[in-house]
């Protein structure tokens, strides 16, 4: 019974392109992309409470892998390579940084996108002598939508599974108190690393899937820090440590941003900033937690 509703929802989403205009489809691609990003982000950060701003680093890397390989390898292999590169990068980054805690981790992950961007730029300038690559793939908007939808569904399924597994339990303990976790015999490094790598791989593949819509790829274009910030705020709004939290945060926020940028193009960034502040101050634990609190209060009032 628990599976029927999500599966029916997924099926409905999968057949939606039949009735959508090009713009509607583009909107759905953006929406599903952010749902995937926010869910993947929450997979690691939701329980451990390590705020990662590295989303753009992995997302951009995925796009870049496609740009480099799209004329050499068949498409499925390109996606696999992207996953491989994302995983390798996550392992290197994870091993070297997951000892950092709190604000230091946040700052490092923010710098990571810039680091990757500069590395690629340096390489392209000094080794290949070009900057800016082209992606000419025959992937239609529908194709991108279905792939992204599949990835998003897989991410949520994976999150559901992790929540129930020993890994999820371990992550929760790590998030509550690392010292206690270490003392109760949880292998801190391995636990964090596995979750970080899973999350990063999904982010990278998401970037790879979305990239054919760019056509032209340049480090400055794909390593866009806004992606990192939006992902965090979406996940936090919904509630990062709940299965459906990131979905509930990403979907409405994405639509609100789209509405604002269409109708208030000049003042849009101000609304964005106000919204960020509102989320942090009014709903620090997310909408889902907020609703529960409200219900609890009502129950109290009634009794």
């Amino acid at each position, binding site marked *: 019974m628990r599976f029927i509703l999500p599966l029916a929802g997924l099926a409905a989403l999968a057949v939606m392109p039949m009735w959508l205009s090009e713009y509607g489809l583009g909107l759905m691609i953006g929406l599903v992309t952010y749902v995937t990003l926010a869910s993947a982000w929450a997979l690691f950060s939701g329980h451990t409470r390590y705020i990662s701003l590295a989303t753009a680093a992995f997302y951009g890397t995925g796009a870049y892998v496609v740009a480099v390989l799209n004329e050499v390898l068949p498409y499925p292999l390109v996606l696999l390579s992207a996953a491989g590169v994302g995983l390798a990068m996550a392992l290197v980054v994870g091993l070297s940084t997951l000892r950092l805690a709190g604000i230091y981790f946040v700052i490092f992950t923010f710098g990571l996108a810039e680091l990757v961007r500069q590395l690629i*730029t340096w390489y392209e300038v000094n080794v290949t002598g070009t*900057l800016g690559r082209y992606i000419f793939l025959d992937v239609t908007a529908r194709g991108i939508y279905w792939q992204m939808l599949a990835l998003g569904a897989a991410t949520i399924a994976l999150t559901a599974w992790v929540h129930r597994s020993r890994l999820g339990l371990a992550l929760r303990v790590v998030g509550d108190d690392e010292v206690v976790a270490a003392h109760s015999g949880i292998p801190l490094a391995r636990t964090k690393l596995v979750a970080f790598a899973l999350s990063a791989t999904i982010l990278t593949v998401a970037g790879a899937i*979305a990239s054919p819509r760019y056509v032209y790829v340049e480090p400055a274009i794909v390593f866009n820090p806004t992606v990192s910030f939006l992902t965090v705020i979406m996940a936090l709004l919904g509630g990062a440590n709940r299965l459906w939290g990131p979905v509930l945060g990403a979907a409405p926020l994405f639509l609100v941003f789209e509405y604002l940028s269409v109708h208030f193009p000049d003042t849009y960034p101000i609304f964005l900033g106000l919204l960020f502040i509102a989320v942090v101050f009014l709903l620090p634990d997310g909408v889902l937690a907020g609703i529960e609190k409200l219900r609890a209060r009502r129950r109290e009032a009634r009794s």
Partner: protein
Amino acid sequence: MDKFTRRRSLCAMALAAVALTAQPALADGETVKIGYAVSLTGPNATGAGITTIPNYKLWVKDVNDAGGLEMPDGSKRMIEVIEYDDRSSNQDLVRAIERLASQDKVDLILPPWSTGANLAIAPLMDRFGYPQLAVTAVTDKAPEFAGRWKRSFWMLGGGHDYAKGLVEVLTAAREAGKINDKVAVVSVADGFGIDLINGARPAFEEAGFDLVYDKSYPLGTSDFAAMMSEAQNSEADSFVAFSYPPDSFGMTKTAISMGYNPAVFYVGVGGAFPIYPGITEGKSDGVMSIGGVDVNGPGIKDYFAHHAEVTGNPPDSWASAITYASLQMLEQAVKRVGLDHAALAEELSTGSFDTLIGTVKLEDNQLRDLWWVGQWQDGVFKGVNPSDKPGASAPTIPKPEW
């Protein structure tokens, strides 16, 4: 007395939002809907704000002041603009174009600013069938793109063209004995700088120049003192920077403050901006850069004055005039064949148009009749290369001291 409850103020705000967005209804068939998505915010906003947006606004105002866009049957229809912000993100840009085409069903779409943005929308524009007059896109692959997307038009040349033009200017000066054969060149490590330096290196070598100093610097560099003094000590008579606006300004200021006076001082993007003479405190004469205009051309003088009057700022001397010219082409093509996209694309591709930069006829969907090198002379940025282009000024070399 009622209290201001949270719910009530929210309601009020929602109502206000609805009221603000509701636009006066316009009768169908009376207007031509023209849409564009440009960077109003984000890193691309500066470039779009100088070159693209003012010219779009100016043109729409000019057309509407004259009674509207003229159709083949002589009737005139007012232009209704739909403007979106792409937030300097290609993802948002692509969505905005989809919205313009399938939701708003606009009659025409004007292109965004920057090479990357124009490439990002090219496949979409092709699929929806809209002609795309890519003005602010500099790419050596223009011939390939014009072949791939039949209704795309590329109007600002490629990096190699600009590099080759500069080498021609320097070769002529060397042959006249005005400069030695040593060149110091710096380039920004970003798309545009790389394209130019890759075109310039072989061209300089072929012309017998010696690149005694050749450095690239990362995007966002703000201290150029070390680089400039190395260039100064390199015995080169020519200093060439393939730079972006902030760097162009920074290097100019550094050169002035350290008294670096090479015979040729060339900066990249930004050198043709109207604020450049202000950066040099009025000592811009002799500085070379990309672009240029024929100051004696029939339309240019009026255009500069008109642009300054309507938008509050003078245009830049590189892509601004070409942007406005591309809109004039569109206007004349609509007058000849109407709004049918296939006919419009065909007319743009084959017709010739009377614009402020002279008569324009595209070659293989590209504008090739461009200024590659310009120079500030008497406070005006004049085109100097190609030297055989009508209206070309002779370059002043050596440059007067700062």
